[in-house]
């Protein structure tokens, strides 16, 4: 087996310990929450509200986690994921303002449940058909959802639903943003985020909410994937017939993957509705499904970190480099073609990273004279 290139500077022992890792992760998490406040010069998007961009990024990262279960883990090509996203948003809107007066937080469980049920209804008949067909059928599903919303007055028709409910606000403290001027950092007291007020202008609290949900779903993802459920999904994706022979009830697990994907999709739709003042059917076009798929493919399907990165890039890059807005979809198309041909495994391929890191560590241990933990040849 090929050994990876030797690292040039092995890390000193303290930095490799488990505690160091936890502290590092903790700092990174705090950094993520602080990102809109820090207003860093190169990273912040010049023309659009960075808080809003981060909020959209977090929502898309959530979508990617869900779609990764369907495409990456279970190997089911779903080209209509925007349908679940739309259902989640619409249930929140319908319960919250269109045909009810529910508080935002109560709409979330219902949104998720309805989406999951629709996922099962869609999956039960269609997961039995061949994989290629699934792609087209899911595409049709996404479109049917959009058309149904557009043609139905009960759901607001083509205009959609206005005044979608917001999460409850509680004003605890204020967080001033930083301002960077001529290389010095100032605290800008005129630019404050009110924590935790969910208003119409400042998107930072929405970002924080979405980010928190991302972390919760991420933990759940890790727990589920490292159990027999994750193994069953992988086996099904690898070789469905053999998995069946090895005792995996493949249809049930495919349906489970679909349902879990729908769950997260509906959740992200509901989260996205919070900050949107109104929702309308044509914002849930097929193009959006394709962008979701692009995020998965770019990041490396099956790898949760990769797809999160892919989703973040898919939102961030067009916002950061605003002038090319019109060419966004064209560039996606080119990116997909190039990736499919030259780097099908995506930016962060699934298993190689873990094993390569392990080997690197062993080589370091050998170099520094520490006892290797275990010889795996």
């Amino acid at each position: 087996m090929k050994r990876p290139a030797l690292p040039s500077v092995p890390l000193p022992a303290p930095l490799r310990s488990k505690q160091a890792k936890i502290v590092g992760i903790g700092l990174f998490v705090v950094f993520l929450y602080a990102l809109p406040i820090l207003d860093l010069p190169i990273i912040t998007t010049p023309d659009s509200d960075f808080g809003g961009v981060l909020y959209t990024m977090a929502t898309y990262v959530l979508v990617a986690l869900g779609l990764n279960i369907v495409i990456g883990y279970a190997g089911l090509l779903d080209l209509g994921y925007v349908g679940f996203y739309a259902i989640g948003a619409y249930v929140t809107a319908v319960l919250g303002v269109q045909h009810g007066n529910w508080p935002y937080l109560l709409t979330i469980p219902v949104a998720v449940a309805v989406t999951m049920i629709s996922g099962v209804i869609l999956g039960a008949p269609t997961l039995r058909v061949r994989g290629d067909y699934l792609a087209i059928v899911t595409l049709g599903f996404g479109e049917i959802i959009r058309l149904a919303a557009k043609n139905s007055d009960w759901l607001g028709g083509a205009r959609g639903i206005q005044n979608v409910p917001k999460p409850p606000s509680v004003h605890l403290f204020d967080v001033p943003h930083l301002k960077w001027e001529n290389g010095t950092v100032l605290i800008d007291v005129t630019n404050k985020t009110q924590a935790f007020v969910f208003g119409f202008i400042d998107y930072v609290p929405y970002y924080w909410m979405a980010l928190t949900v991302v972390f919760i779903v991420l933990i759940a993802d890790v727990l589920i994937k490292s159990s027999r459920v994750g193994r069953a999904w992988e086996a099904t994706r690898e070789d469905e017939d053999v998995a069946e022979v090895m005792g995996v009830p493949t249809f049930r697990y495919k349906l489970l993957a679909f349902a879990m994907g729908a769950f997260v999709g509906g959740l992200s739709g509901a989260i996205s509705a919070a900050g949107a003042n109104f929702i309308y059917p044509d914002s849930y076009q097929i193009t959006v499904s394709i962008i979701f798929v692009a995020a998965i493919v770019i990041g490396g399907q099956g790898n949760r970190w990769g797809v999160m990165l892919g989703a973040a890039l898919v939102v961030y890059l067009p916002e950061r480099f605003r002038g090319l807005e019109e060419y966004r979809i064209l560039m996606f198309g080119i990116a997909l073609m190039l990736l499919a041909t030259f780097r099908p495994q995506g930016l962060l391929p699934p298993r190689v990273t873990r094993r390569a890191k392990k080997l690197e560590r062993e080589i370091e241990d050998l170099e520094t004279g520490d006892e290797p933990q275990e010889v795996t040849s």
Partner: protein
Amino acid sequence: MSTDETSHQATESTGGVMLEVDHVTLRFGGVTALDDVSFEIREGEILGLIGPNGAGKTTCFNVTTGVYRPTRGEVRFRGRSLSRMKRFQITRLGIARTFQNIRLFKTMTALDNVMVGGDTHSSVGILNALFRTPRQRREEDENHRRALELLDFVGIGKRADELAANLSYGDQRRLEIARAMATNPKLLCLDEPAAGFNPAEKQRLMELIRKVRDQGYTVLLIEHDMRLVMGVTDRIVVLEFGRKIAEGSPAEIRDDPAVIAAYLGTDEEDAS
């Protein structure tokens, strides 16, 4: 035809009938792949299924393991008909198999491959996994432990963390066996397990198969290598053109004129 000292002494199989192939006929379109084939597999024995190329061994094997449904006739496992069962239910019932052309889960480690087999009888669902209930943790540890044991048993314990795709050919074949065993079967069906092995490896494989039987499994075996079949099986069923032409102990089969004729006089191991 050599008689070797290591040839297996036919032992009385311990128990009753485990699996019955009952007048099975299988037609694909216009071709009759199996024609009224009947035989049984007894508990604790190693049964060999042989025949010249095109005899229908693989088809018969697939019917026996529930992959194909017979056009006529029935396969019964401990009295229960396999006809209406889903494939994963057949595995849960106790029939496991390997694949001649090695179909491992390539991007998973050897350990994970075996653990997938070990999940067969698990009743743990997604909620258990999510909340890491005591039962889930216990079953997971148990599965992990048993998987490592099985990998050691077949001789690839050191390679547990390797990707299946990176294993050597011989190790991949062993992994196939370990994975099938992990489903806790009563009947283990091996599809040409020695294909591509050199004589030394075949010898090791024969020992492994005997070890497997000694652990309490019943084994069904398709093989082209006559020496291996004669050396390790208790009984042999011979097919030709989809029909059973002989059944008996290795010694009986060796001298059976119909069998000799079917193979056109070659009853040594042949390169398939």
